[in-house]
C-alpha cells in the first residue's frame, strides 16, 4: 500500500492505495469519479483520458502513485458548477455523441488538442489527432464537427482573456 496525495478537480485528495492501482481505478473507485470510463485493456480506446498537469493522459496507462503530487482534472471538473466548457457545449450542439461512453475521453482529448495546437484546426488535423480515441457510434463525422466548433469557441475565449 502507498499513500497518494494529488489534486483532483481542484481539491486535495489523499488515500492509501495498493501499489498496482491504476489512476483510472483510483478515480473511479476511490474518488467515485465515474465519468472517466474504461473501454479496453490495451490503452487503445481513449475512454479514460484525463488531464494530468494540463496534459491529456490515458489514465489506464499510469499508476495512481505516478500521479502523486500532480494536478488531475477529469470530465467532471472540466467546467465550473452548472457551467459547460465550450468543448462540452460544442459536442451537444453538433450531436457529437450518441451512447456517451467515449464522450468524456473525446472531450478531454479535444481540449488538449486545442491547448497544444491552437483553435484553428482543420478536418485532417482533427482526424489525425483523434488517433487515440475510438468511437463506435458516431462514425466520427459529428465529433470532428464538434471539435472544430469547440476549438473556435475556445479561441474566442482565449482572445477575450488576452484582451
Amino acid at each position: 500500500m502507498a499513500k497518494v496525495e494529488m489534486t483532483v478537480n481542484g481539491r486535495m485528495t489523499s488515500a492509501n492505495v495498493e501499489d498496482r492501482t491504476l489512476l483510472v481505478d483510483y478515480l473511479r473507485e476511490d474518488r467515485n469519479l465515474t465519468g472517466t470510463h474504461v473501454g479496453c485493456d490495451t490503452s487503445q480506446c481513449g475512454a479514460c483520458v484525463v488531464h494530468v498537469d494540463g496534459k491529456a493522459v490515458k489514465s489506464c496507462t499510469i499508476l495512481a502513485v505516478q500521479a502523486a503530487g500532480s494536478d488531475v482534472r477529469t470530465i467532471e471538473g472540466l467546467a465550473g458548477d452548472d457551467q459547460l466548457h465550450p468543448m462540452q457545449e460544442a459536442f451537444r450542439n453538433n450531436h457529437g455523441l450518441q451512447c456517451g461512453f467515449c464522450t468524456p475521453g473525446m472531450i478531454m482529448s479535444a481540449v488538449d488538442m486545442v491547448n497544444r495546437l491552437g483553435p484553428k484546426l482543420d478536418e485532417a488535423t482533427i482526424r489525425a489527432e483523434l488517433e487515440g480515441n475510438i468511437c463506435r457510434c458516431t462514425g466520427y463525422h459529428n465529433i470532428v464537427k464538434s471539435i472544430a466548433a469547440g476549438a473556435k469557441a475556445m479561441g474566442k475565449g482565449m482572445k477575450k482573456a488576452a484582451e
Partner: protein
Amino acid sequence: MGIEGIGARVLRKEDKRFITGQGRYTDDHKVAGMHYAAFVRSPHAHAKIKKINTKAANQMSGVVGIFDGKQLTGDGIGNIICGWMIHSKDGSPMNMGAWSALATEYVRYVGDAVVVVIAETLAEARAAAEAVDVSYKVLKAVIDPEDALKNGAPQLHPEAKNNTIYDWEIGDEAATDAAFAKAANVVEMDIRNNRLVPNAMEPRSALAEYDAAEDHFTLHTTSQNPHVARLVLSAFYQVAPENKLRVIAPDVGGGFGSKIYIYPEEIVCLWAAKKARVKAVKWTSDRSEAFITDAHGRDHVSKAKMAFDADNRILGFKIDTIANIGAYMSLFSSSVPTYLYATLLSGQYNIANIHCNVRTVYTNTVPVDAYRGAGRPEATFLVERMMETAARQLDVDPAELRRANFVREFPHQTPVIFCYDAGDYETSLNAAMEAADYANFEKRRKRSARKGKLRGIGMSCYIEACGIAPSAAVGSLGAGVGLWESAEVRVNPVGTVEILTGSHSHGQGHETTFAQLVSDRFGLPSENVQVVHGDTDKVQFGMGTYGSRSGAVGMSAIEKALDKVEDKAKKIAAHMLEASEGDIEIKDGEVSVKGTDKKLLWHEVCLGAYTGHNLPEGMEPGLKEGAFYDPTNFTFPAGCYICEVEVDPDTGTTTIEQFVAADDFGKIINPMIVEGQVHGGLAQGIGQALMENAVYDDSGQLLSASYMDYTMPRADDLPSFKVSTTETLCPGNPLGIKGCGEAGAIGSPPAVINAITNAIGHNNLPMPASPHNVWAAVQAGE
C-alpha cells in the same frame, strides 16, 4: 410541428449528463456489501473437463464462493435458450445442443465459462480465479463452417449430426431452376461475409443484488431489452419468479445487437449472489473478455448465381449459404441466417424466382447472433455485389442494370415472403448519383491515374426490413415471443408528461425523439416531458430496442397512447367549457373551442382530470393511458450508397475519397439524430469492408482479440459523409416511419467493395479489403 415537434432538429435532452461525466452506466453503480465475480474460462476450443481443483483458490484472501456448472445445474438453473424455432426443409425441428451458463462436461470455445469465483474485491476474485486448476482432455476443434460439414469433422453436440443445426430453404427451387434454363446469361459468385465483433464501447456488465429477507433480486445490466431479460431469466433459467426479479438497464454504452442476449454472466451473478450469501455480485467484462464472450456477427459462406434474359432482366437468383453459428445457439441466432437474411434476397429488384438454401452449423467459436443489420447486411452484400459483377460481365452501366430491374409498383410481393409496401428506388439512386457527381467520375479517375493511383467507384442499392414485427407473423415463422411494443403516457396534475416505453435507448436519443411526439401533439416544451425506460419496476413490459424497431414500433405505441390521452383530455375540456367534444382543439399548450375565444390552459384540464370535481358523468379521474402496438407489416427502408476510393497499388492502401448516402426512412422525427445513425452505421459497414475481421487459428484461438489486433475505423480512416434523405411514407404505421438504425451498416459494405474492385479492375478480392488483401489482389490479378 412547432420548434420541438416532429421533423425538428431538437438537441438531445440526454446529452448534458454524458458530456459532464454524469452518465450512470452499470459499472458506475456500487452498493454496500458488493462482491466481485471473476470467471475461469476455457483456454481450449474443444475439450472434456477432467477435473476442477479449487482447493488452493478457496483458501485465498477474500474468497466467499467458488462454483461450477454441476452446482449450477444442480440448483435447477436452466440451459440457455434460443428463442426462434427453425424447421429444416424436411420438416424436422432444429437440432439444438445444450448450453449451460457454466460448462458441465465439455467446453466448446475459447472463453466458455467453467467456474466462477466470488470474492470481496475484484483483485481477490481474479487472483483466486487464476489459482483454480481445471484439467482438460483436449479434443480436435473445427473452426471453419465448411469444414464443420465435412466427413470426419469434430462433432460439437450429440443433438446436431454433422454439426448441422438445420438445413433450411426458402423459395421455389424447381421454378428457379427452370428460370435458369431459359437464361441468356448466368453470373456466378462465391462470397464470404467476414466474421465481426460488435465492440460496443461500454463492455458488458452485471450487478446482481440479492435481498435475502424478501428473497428478491435486482439486476443492473447492460441490456437492450431488460424486460425480455427478466422474462427469460425467470421463465427459462429459473433464477427467480418475475415478481421477485427487477431488471434495470441504466445508461448503456452502445449495443449494436450484442446486448440483446442474456449471457451466462448475468445468470451466474444472480445465482451466485444468493448461493454465496452476499448482498451483491458485480462482474464487468474487460475488453479481452468481451472479444471471447460477446456474440459475434456475420460469418457466412455463399455460392450465388443470377440468371438474366437477353434484355438484362433478372430471371432468377439462386443461393447456397453455410452460416456459422459458433459453439452454441444464442437467443436470436437461428433467425438471423434465415428469416432476417434470405427474405431480403430480392433486393430492390423484381425477381420472379428466388431460391436460397441455408445450412447453419456449429463450430468451436464464440456464438454468433444478430449484429447491426443481422442478416440484411449479408443479403445486401450478395445482391449488390452480384448486380455490380453482372453489370461488368454484361457490359452495361451498373446504374442502368439496376434501373432496368427496380420494383416500381407497390405493394410488391417478392418470392421470399416479404411484401414491400412503399418505396421509390430510382429517386434515391438519382439523388446519390447527383451528390457523388457520378457523371464526372472518369475525369477524377484520370487525375488519380496521373499520380499512379487506382480510382474506383461503386454503388449499392439496398433494401432492408425493420420494425420487427407483426407478432402473429413472426410466431408462425417460429419466434417464441410477440414483437409488439408498449407505451404508457402519464400526464401529471400540473400538465407535465411522462412517457414510459418498452423501447430502450443505448445511444439512439429516445429521450429526445419520444418527447418530440408529445411536443408535436400538445405544443408542450420538451423539457416538460420525461421519458422513462429500462426498468422493469417502472415500465410494465416491452420488447426492447433492436432491428431499428423503436421508431416504427415503439413510437407507434406512444402515438396510440397519446391518441387516448388526447381523446380523454378533449372530453374533459368539452365538459368544462360546455362545448362539443368535436370542437375542442389542443395547440401550443392551450385547449380551446374552435372558432371561439373560450379556452383553458393545458394544465387546467390536467388538474381538472385529477381533482375530479367536474368530470363528465361516469368518467374515471386521472389522465394516464397505455397502449400496446402490434405492427401490421415489416417496414422497408431503402436507399442508394455510392463510394469512391483511391487505391495505392504499391501498398494496397485504400482511401475513401467520398461516401454518399441517399436514404428513404419514411417520416423522420429528428433529422439530426437520423443523420447520426447513418454516420455510425456507415462507419461500421466501411469497417467491415476495409478492416474488421475476427480471425481464428486452426486450434480455435481468436487471434484478433484486442484493439491492438481487431482493427476498427478511427477518425482518420473515414471521410465526412454526404448524407441526404428522400421520403416515401410507410403506410403501415401511424407516423409513416421506416427506421434508420442499421441501414448504414447494411448498405455500405458492397458499395466499398464494388468501388475497390472497380479500381483494381477485377473481382478477386476477399473482404475485408485490408491493405494486405488489396495489395495481394493487385499483384495476383484476375
